[in-house]
């Protein structure tokens, strides 16, 4: 469904991605792991067009989408839930959903309120007044009413209480069950191992490991080498 091939991206003059290549198949959850600064967020931004890759291709549903404007890539069915969620604080919960809602979407706003009852209760609250967990649910709900074929999640559990994290894991599972592919960037190894069908590890803008769920469970050496905090 999504193929990223030898992607090179820059912020100004700094070369961030050095030929990143990865794939996500239909209905699959794929995790992208790596330390801070490895290029995970930049990879997501390069896929959705916020950062224009200087070299390489992004193929979605058989068509090259690199170089398209951000709103057109979103229109093809890729929804990014950014780090820090991007909730519009001055808009109500309902308005946050309404501006994203697309005609013919599988997820109507009413369906969302059934799926996330808490958002229904808070529909008239301003985005800024929601708790962190509610904001994350709203961010995902807003991506869903956009009718995506694929969801990119950037650090969805960041700053959330453990009980909310478990709720979120259940939500991501149901999204997968609905046939939506997920590319997950996440610091929590536990969350990734619970959810993902396959894993990639990024370091210094390069993919240094890829493996299936089973392979990754036994890849202690790689997990140690690329993911644990280095002592100085």
């Amino acid at each position, binding site marked *: 469904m999504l193929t990223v091939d030898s992607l090179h991206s820059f912020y100004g003059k700094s070369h961030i991605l050095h030929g990143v290549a990865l794939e996500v198949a239909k209905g699959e959850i794929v995790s992208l792991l790596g330390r801070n600064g490895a290029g995970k967020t930049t990879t997501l931004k390069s896929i959705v067009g*916020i950062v224009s890759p200087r070299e390489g291709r992004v193929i979605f549903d058989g068509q090259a989408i690199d170089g398209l404007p951000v709103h057109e890539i979103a229109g093809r069915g890729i929804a990014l839930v950014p780090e820090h969620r991007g909730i519009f604080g001055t808009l109500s919960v309902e308005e946050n959903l309404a*501006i994203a809602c697309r005609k013919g979407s599988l997820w109507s706003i009413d369906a969302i309120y059934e799926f996330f009852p808490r958002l229904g209760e808070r529909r008239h609250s301003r985005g800024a007044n929601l708790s962190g967990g509610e904001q994350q649910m709203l961010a995902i709900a807003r991506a869903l009413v956009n009718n995506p074929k694929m969801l990119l999640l950037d650090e969805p559990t960041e700053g959330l209480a453990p009980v909310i994290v478990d709720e979120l894991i259940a939500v991501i599972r149901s999204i997968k069950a609905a046939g939506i592919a997920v590319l997950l960037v996440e610091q929590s190894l536990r969350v990734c191992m619970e959810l993902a069908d396959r894993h990639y590890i990024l370091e210094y803008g390069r993919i240094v490991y890829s493996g299936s769920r089973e392979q990754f469970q036994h890849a202690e050496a790689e997990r140690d080498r690329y993911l644990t905090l280095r002592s100085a």
Partner: protein
Amino acid sequence: MNLYLIQVFNGLGIGMIYFLIAVGLTIIFGIMNFVNFAHGAFYLLGAYACYAIADLTGNFWLALVLGPVAVGIGGWLGERYFLSRLYRVPHMYQILVTLGLALVIQEMAVLIWGPIGKPIAPPEVFRGVMIFGNFAYPKYRLFLIGFTAILALALWLLLERTRYGAVLRAGTESTEMVSLLGINIFRVYSMTFALGAFLAGLAGVLAAPIRGAEPFMGPDALVIAFVVVVVGGLGSFAGALVGGIVVGIVQSVMSSFWSEGANIMIYVAMALVILLRPHGLLGRA
């Protein structure tokens, strides 16, 4: 006492004109981060559109409908094919280009209509005064206050109760996030710019029967609109409304105390607001 009451009413009417000019400036800056020094030229074009249409047809109401629509379409075309190229450059260049554009429009007005102002009569029904006991007030100014109040309400509904309004408010927070939801932000920019031009044109038409149309009214209006935006709070609709009324009333009331200083007093008011509330009366930090 009566005199001050009349000046407060005058200030209210003028303040609503200022509001109509400033609201476009403030929402354009709020969402597009674009400094438009040509905004006063839209006001000028509105006043001359009123003159031209009323002169040709004798019908003010036709001018009230067609004038702002023509200015709005002009603004839309200007944004689409010209000013949209300036979004990526620093503010200094935006100011230079739009200031140049304002001068071009102003000098075109001189070429077409001459350097002397043109008087415009109020529509027939609103000529003369209305008497309330021992208090007389021009009918046209009453109409102005009522009509602009309805407009402000309609505009508020547009911004607070429609999808376009929600997108606009969302864009003021983050245009990137709006794009990520699949919304073409550049189309929103064009519509917003056209709306701002329409409202400034409308202000020009409405002001014409009070102050006529003259080629140099653009820069004055622009400066006052910036004062209104600073007083009310950058990017805030309610701020433009409150700021417009405050500036209008300060200017009007002061003109009966100290007519030479009336214009200075609006800057004093602005300085006070900046000292006490740096983000404006209704601005967000």
